[in-house]
């Protein structure tokens, strides 16, 4: 059952910053020592605040940027060492939808051409491509009359659905969805999520969904990874992580989602304060320590290691370890 499709161990991506004549070189630790295994047929959620390195991680998997250290195996293939044919296959197998609906489509290409383009690259003839493009439009509940429109003539939600349709046309095995539904209104969001779930059931797709929205995670994801300042702080099954969060940051994230009952608002003790801080000037200890109300001197001095709390549920926090002792 568990064949890994995406595998990474100790993955690092640092960006250079402030590299000028009069300043010392600094590094932005966008992705720092990340271990992640995604199995075939899984829907994995990746959550975390803005600037925690989620999109960088996605770009690394897509081979849009090269890791500073370690490597990624996609379907057992390392994209950096792949042959031309393997690379072609990889490009066909992984599809992506980025978060910005306006920027996802080429402004000078009609919707039809945008959807057909990936098929043409991979050798589908024009006529069949057209048929499949129509089918894909139907799947995302858009009228086929949009084929000849330019993206600027459509709404953000329509653009995003077209981006999803385009990602689907090549029958990918893996889909990386970066905030796929944040530009959609609630009803369309539900449609798109259900569509993704249906496809997953039919074709055994593997998804990695990057999102802020914990409701989406709860609704579609099998497993969740929580990321904070370039590091994974907790992961496990959706059930475990969302209902029995262990890391103080995950607890804070839960507390930050809107509470429907007005009388219960402002009572949650775990709510996060402050901002994530900088990825450049990192303290030696736990990255969350400056914002963590449970932080001890140990937290400020050492980095906590990933510890398994219950089967398949891990967190990187000293508190859990101490509690067990």
């Amino acid at each position, binding site marked *: 059952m568990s064949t890994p499709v995406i595998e990474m161990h100790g993955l690092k991506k640092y960006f250079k910053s402030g590299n000028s004549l009069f300043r010392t070189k600094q590094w932005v630790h966008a992705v720092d020592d990340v271990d992640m295994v995604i199995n075939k047929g899984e829907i994995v959620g990746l959550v975390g605040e803005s600037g925690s390195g989620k999109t960088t991680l996605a*770009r690394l998997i*897509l*081979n*849009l940027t090269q890791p500073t250290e370690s490597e990624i195996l996609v379907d057992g293939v390392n994209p950096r060492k792949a042959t031309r044919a393997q*690379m*072609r296959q990889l*490009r*066909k197998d*992984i*599809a*992506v*939808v*980025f*978060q*910005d609906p306006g*920027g*996802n*489509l*080429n*402004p*000078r*290409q009609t919707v039809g051409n945008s959807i057909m*383009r*990936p098929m043409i*690259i*991979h050798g589908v003839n024009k006529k069949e491509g057209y048929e499949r493009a129509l089918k894909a439009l139907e799947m995302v509940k858009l009228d086929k009359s949009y084929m000849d429109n330019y993206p600027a003539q459509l709404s953000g939600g329509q653009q995003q659905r077209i*981006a999803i349709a*385009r990602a689907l046309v*090549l029958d990918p095995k893996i889909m990386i969805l970066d905030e796929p539904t944040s530009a959609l209104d609630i009803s369309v969001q539900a449609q798109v999520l259900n569509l993704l779930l249906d496809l997953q059931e039919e074709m055994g797709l593997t998804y990695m969904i990057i999102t802020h929205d914990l409701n989406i995670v709860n609704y579609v994801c099998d497993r969740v990874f929580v990321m904070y300042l370039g590091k994974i702080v907790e992961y496990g099954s959706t059930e475990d992580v969302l209902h029995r969060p262990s890391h103080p940051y995950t607890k804070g994230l839960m507390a930050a989602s809107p509470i429907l009952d007005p009388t219960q608002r402002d009572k949650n003790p775990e709510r996060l304060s402050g901002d994530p801080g900088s990825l450049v000037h990192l303290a030696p200890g736990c990255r969350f320590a400056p914002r963590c109300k449970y932080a001890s001197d140990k937290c400020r001095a050492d980095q906590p290691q990933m510890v398994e709390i219950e089967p398949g549920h891990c967190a990187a926090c000293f508190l859990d370890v101490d509690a067990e002792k």
Partner: protein
Amino acid sequence: MKKKSFFRRLVKNKSCFIGFIMIVLLIVVALLDSVIATYDYNKGNVTDRYKAPSAEHLFGTDEMGRDVFSRTVYGTKLALRSALLGAAIEMAIGVSLGLIAGFFGKWIDTTITFVADMIWSLPTIVIAMAFVMLLGKSLDNVIIACALAGWPRYTRIVRAKTMGLKDQPFVETGIAFGESKAALMFKYIFPNILPSMLVMASISMPGFIGSTTTLSFLGMGAQPPSPDWGLAISRGASVIYRAPWVTIFPCLALIYTIIAFSLFGEGLRDLIDPRLQGN
């Protein structure tokens, strides 16, 4: 529908519309030169030299007794040809180098930017003169030389735009789908910078006509007996007090042409890409 509304906006923008009409007139004159001109540009009667404008010779005659009106009309084609051909060559060089520099970055970018900045830091006319000296004196060489001296203006803008577009999600998605580098450049990035390039071209055209005429004036471009305006102005300059018409009429034609392209270009810029203003 989109095209129609664009045309309507074009008509509404006064400077663009006036410039457009002026250019159309120019093109008509250039195409019908042999019909409009009353005399052959190269035949004159030496006994008729420096005749003042009259019914017989509308703009008077020059030092060889040739009809200045006919020569000015024939010169239109040369001026338009150098403007269009020159802008096309300049744009082709500038845009492709800008695309390459912006897309590939690293040492390729550094090299191209260095050369572009070097050329750009010197006066265009001086660079163009150096190229003409290398290539030999002729109008065609003047056009090539001016293009070789002027391409950095495109490279700088195209490079900046390419670098911005390269990080757009739609380009990254293209990479993720396995687009080739050439397809990314020409199908994804280039169509998105083309409109502003056309604006740039029409704005830089007056300057281009100015440069080529200047070089002809300096004796590096068109050679006698060509009806080129720059050449005519330079030959008339020595007798400007005795026979001002020899200089004045080609000058007016030149000014008219430059105003026409300036009005059109600036109007077009306001219509298509207001952000280019002040460049």
